């Protein structure tokens, strides 16, 4: 039985080296095919008629005119008369037609009568939401009343972040094709190929094995693409009714209206410290919405755990598209609310927030020493000590500069995964598992781990993913993928190698345990000249390939969970216009053993850019009167462009103590801190808190009217 572990630092040929992503050329050249690119023979195009009202009851539906339109092959009522619709854009009728434009024209011939019902789409003012508020019980720890009474400094503030969307480059959708009455193939755009097939089967009443899901590439998900969704299931039903394959991809407007929202979070927060800057107490009244279901409660105070706390959260049922997990669910909200309050407390104490954090670092618990090191490292990258100034940049002219910081955490425990490694007698190697590469580099990580284990170059590994006929692997959410697939691949490859060693050991005249795979050879440990080339060794298999599987969880400590990170931002604010520019951001991040530093850094860069987007620009703007989203497009749902990003610096924390933790997920944690790091930098620059994101000119100028340097 092999001993399952990662190779020692000095013995790694590929792990920890900067490998380019293996699918880069396919993506750049356009040969990578996404669900959007799938075109099946005779394929129809599906479209969905959506409810224009935020809250309504369907009275009647007349589809007769649409059915008569030339080229329309199937019309299906998704939600019939009597149904209560809870958000604008919800699905009412599906149509499949030979052309997209015909399907769209058909939708406009469907007559639906609605009875409009009262709606709520704005939740920022808690006192105006009425019975839509669902308060949870108050939680108290320690003795907050005494702590606030005895405190040297108490600061009260109001902070918040609006509902935003996921805004993946590729919209939701799928292609569905029936092989016969009982067997379905789907090409979904999903974060969980293995899981989504089962969900299709369950909803359609098919045996689990009768649905095959295929997906090679996906244009982003960020937490919004786990379910087949009602539109996916309807695609399959339209395909069955029409007797032809159907493709239905959401247009950008419904993508932004209904296909995922990050819950908002607003809070009135009171924090206290002793005169010398010891953080003692927290009190918060928080609220937010994630749609009609209310939405999650942000874990506040976040990372920091002062001894005396009182908090209460109220979920608000609003008539907006429902919430979905958004990259590090609840953490960006919690981090913003907490780190802004802490920065305001430090400002009231006239303390550098870096000093405040270092002084109170024990309140971050078991990870405090890592946080301490990361804070110091990040401060060096930013030249913090030299550049930081107390609140309000005193320099003349309208441009004010400031620094801000935040810290964050995430779990990232590996998901279940099964991998099959195959060594063919011709020496070729296949690694097969039904995982998916969200653009994070999963393919590359699997190939590196297999190549490292076999002592082969990365391009010697043929990789099979994205097909439910392969061994199952978990969905890509919660930053669980890299730990899962790297561990199952390592075990599968070690198991395969063990069989190969057994086969060739007699030829090399040693016991199998004395063999190792390195440099394209199978060789005797300590005597590398005694070897067979990989090809010679494989040839000993005769005609029978080796198939070996590896699973996660499994033996050996290949992964764990729990990471931390620190981010700092340097911004300029034009106090005459309220425009905020990012000069520089730095991220210091740990995530255990890093398989490919280049890809790891790439994850952090992407997360910081996403963080800049939600800090400065993103907001799902809802219209009070009509209940409709006003910016369901890329024109007014604003995202950063290249020129808006500034200089980004990423430093991954590595070393033996991190390697020994094994592989831990990284996709989510670095998107948590940008909001408060940027928000705090703006407060530091202009001398007054801009309480809510995004930091638009409107909000910055409104804050400056109340105080600050202007």
């Amino acid at each position: 039985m092999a001993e399952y572990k990662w190779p020692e630092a000095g013995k790694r040929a590929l792990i920890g080296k900067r490998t380019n992503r293996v699918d880069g050329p396919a993506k750049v050249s356009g040969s990578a095919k996404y669900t959007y690119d799938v075109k099946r023979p005779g394929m129809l195009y599906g479209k969905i008629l959506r409810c224009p009202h935020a809250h309504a009851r369907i009275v009647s539906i007349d589809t007769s005119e649409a059915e008569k339109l030339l080229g329309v092959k199937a019309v299906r009522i998704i939600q019939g008369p009597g149904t209560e619709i809870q958000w604008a854009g919800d699905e009412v009728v599906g149509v499949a037609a030979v052309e997209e434009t015909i399907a769209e024209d058909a939708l406009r011939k469907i007559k639906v009568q609605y009875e409009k019902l009262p709606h709520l789409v704005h939740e920022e003012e808690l006192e105006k939401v009425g019975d839509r508020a669902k308060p949870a019980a108050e939680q108290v720890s320690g003795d907050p009343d005494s702590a606030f009474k005895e405190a040297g400094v108490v600061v009260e503030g109001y902070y918040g972040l609006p509902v935003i969307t996921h805004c993946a480059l590729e919209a939701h959708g799928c292609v569905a094709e029936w092989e016969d009455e009982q067997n379905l193939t789907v090409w979904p755009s999903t974060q969980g190929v293995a899981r989504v097939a089962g969900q299709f089967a369950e909803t359609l009443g098919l045996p689990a094995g009768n649905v095959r899901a295929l997906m090679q590439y996906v244009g982003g998900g960020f937490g919004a693409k786990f379910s087949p969704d009602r539109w996916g299931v309807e695609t399959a039903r339209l395909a069955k009714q029409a007797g032809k394959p159907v493709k239905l991809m959401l247009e950008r407007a419904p993508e932004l209206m209904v296909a995922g929202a990050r819950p908002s979070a607003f809070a009135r927060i009171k924090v206290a410290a002793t005169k010398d800057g010891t953080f003692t107490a927290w009190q918060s009244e928080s609220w937010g919405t994630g749609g009609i279901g209310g939405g999650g409660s942000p874990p506040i105070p976040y990372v920091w755990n002062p001894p005396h706390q009182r908090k209460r959260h109220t979920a608000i049922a609003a008539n907006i598209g429902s919430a979905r997990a958004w990259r590090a669910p609840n953490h960006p909200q919690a981090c913003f609310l907490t780190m802004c309050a802490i920065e305001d407390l430090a400002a009231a104490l006239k303390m550098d927030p870096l000093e405040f954090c270092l002084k109170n670092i024990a309140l971050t618990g078991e990870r405090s020493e890592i946080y301490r090191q990361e804070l110091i490292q990040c401060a060096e990258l930013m030249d913090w000590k030299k550049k930081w100034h107390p609140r309000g940049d005193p320099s003349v002219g309208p441009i004010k500069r400031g620094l801000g910081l935040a810290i964050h955490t995430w779990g990232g425990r590996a998901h279940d995964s099964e991998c099959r490694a195959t060594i063919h007698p011709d020496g070729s190697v296949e690694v097969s598992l039904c995982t998916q590469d969200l653009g994070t580099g999963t393919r590359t990580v699997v190939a590196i781990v297999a190549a490292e284990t076999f002592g082969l170059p990365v391009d010697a590994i043929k990789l099979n993913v994205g097909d439910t006929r392969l061994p199952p692997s978990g969905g890509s959410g919660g930053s669980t993928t890299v730990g899962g697939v790297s561990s199952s691949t390592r075990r599968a490859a070690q198991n395969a190698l063990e069989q190969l060693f057994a086969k060739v050991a007699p030829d090399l005249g040693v016991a199998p345990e004395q063999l190792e795979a390195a440099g394209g050879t199978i060789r005797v440990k300590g005597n590398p000249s005694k070897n067979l080339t990989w090809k010679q060794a494989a040839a000993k298999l005769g005609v029978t390939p080796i198939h070996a599987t590896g699973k996660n969880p499994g033996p050996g400590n290949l992964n764990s969970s729990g990471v931390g990170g620190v981010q700092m931002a340097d911004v300029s604010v034009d106090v005459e216009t309220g425009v905020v520019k990012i000069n520089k951001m730095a991220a210091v991040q740990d995530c255990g053993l890093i398989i490919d530093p280049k890809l790891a850094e790439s994850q952090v860069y992407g997360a910081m850019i996403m963080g800049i987007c939600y800090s400065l620009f993103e907001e799902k703007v809802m219209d009070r009167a009509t209940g409709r989203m006003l910016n369901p497009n890329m024109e007014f749902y604003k995202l950063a462009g290249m020129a808006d990003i500034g200089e980004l610096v990423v430093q991954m924390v590595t070393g033996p103590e991190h390697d020994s933790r094994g592989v831990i997920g990284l996709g989510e944690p670095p998107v948590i801190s940008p909001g408060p790091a940027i928000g705090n930098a703006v407060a530091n620059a202009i001398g007054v808190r801009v309480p809510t994101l995004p930091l638009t000119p409107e909000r910055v100028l409104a804050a400056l009217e109340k105080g600050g340097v202007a």
Partner: protein
Amino acid sequence: MDAFEYASPTTKEQAVALLAGEWGSTELLAGGTDLLSLMKDYLVTPKRVVNIKSVQELKGLRYTAGSGLRLGALVTIAELVEHPQARKEYPALIQAAEGIASPQIRSLGTVGGDLCQRPRCWYFRNGFGLLAKDEQGGSLVADGDNRYHAILGNSGPAYFVNPSSLAPALIALGAKVQLFGPGGARELSLDRFFVIPKTEQDREYALKPNEILLEVLVPPATKVRSATYEVRQKEALDWPLVAAAVALNLDGNKIRTARVVLGHVAPIPWKAPEAEKVLAGKTVTEDLAAEAGQAAVSQASPLSRNAYKVQLARVAVKRAVLQAAQGGV
């Protein structure tokens, strides 16, 4: 989108003969950067689309010291931006053109299209109509999310802002437009080209439904210093929140006359005579520029969510004046 007839005339006479006498049943296609999205969103549903890209006389950019700049309606934004004499003589115009969206839009979009594009008002673009009225006839904008709407000329029923990037600069530079219809050509000062619609059926410009825009004529500006300053939150692919174009006719350091035009603040490009009066006869200083900015917004009456745009307009005028005085670059 609904099926439509597609016509591709080669002369201006053919083009206007293909246009209907009322708005809506025919639409002109030039760069298409606005029309296609309007059609895909069913905001316009023409029975006939008249492609004017083959009408040669609508093309061409010409500059002479004597008569100034002639911009055919089909001149692309990219052609304008790259024209060396236009760059030298009309900084306000070039700065405005450079602010337009993206290289792709600048390559396809035309000068005529920039002047005739429809408002970006999110109520209009979401299908609530040009004047965005609710079922009772009240304005969705006045009581709604009007953060990007008008702060001037907004007594109703229109609250959107004119989206043209070039118009404020062109008006500040004294441009005229040549229009052509069944009765022949007519000339109009560009500031009279834009109108505030009163009904859903109106358009935002003085073209008749069967007229086309032929060309824009910008007088020589050898003695004029000009600049455009746009306040924009994002660097690219975004509309300015407010823009100001300033043209200063200088006598040494002294301003003989000034023209100040604001963009994105009113349903039409907004001339600011109050600011022009402040500037006339004075020497440019930071204080004077600020005073002009203040004067430019003296008549502003913000809606519920857009008071910040008053401040942005004030600053845009101030900065455009200072930028123009420094030579416009």
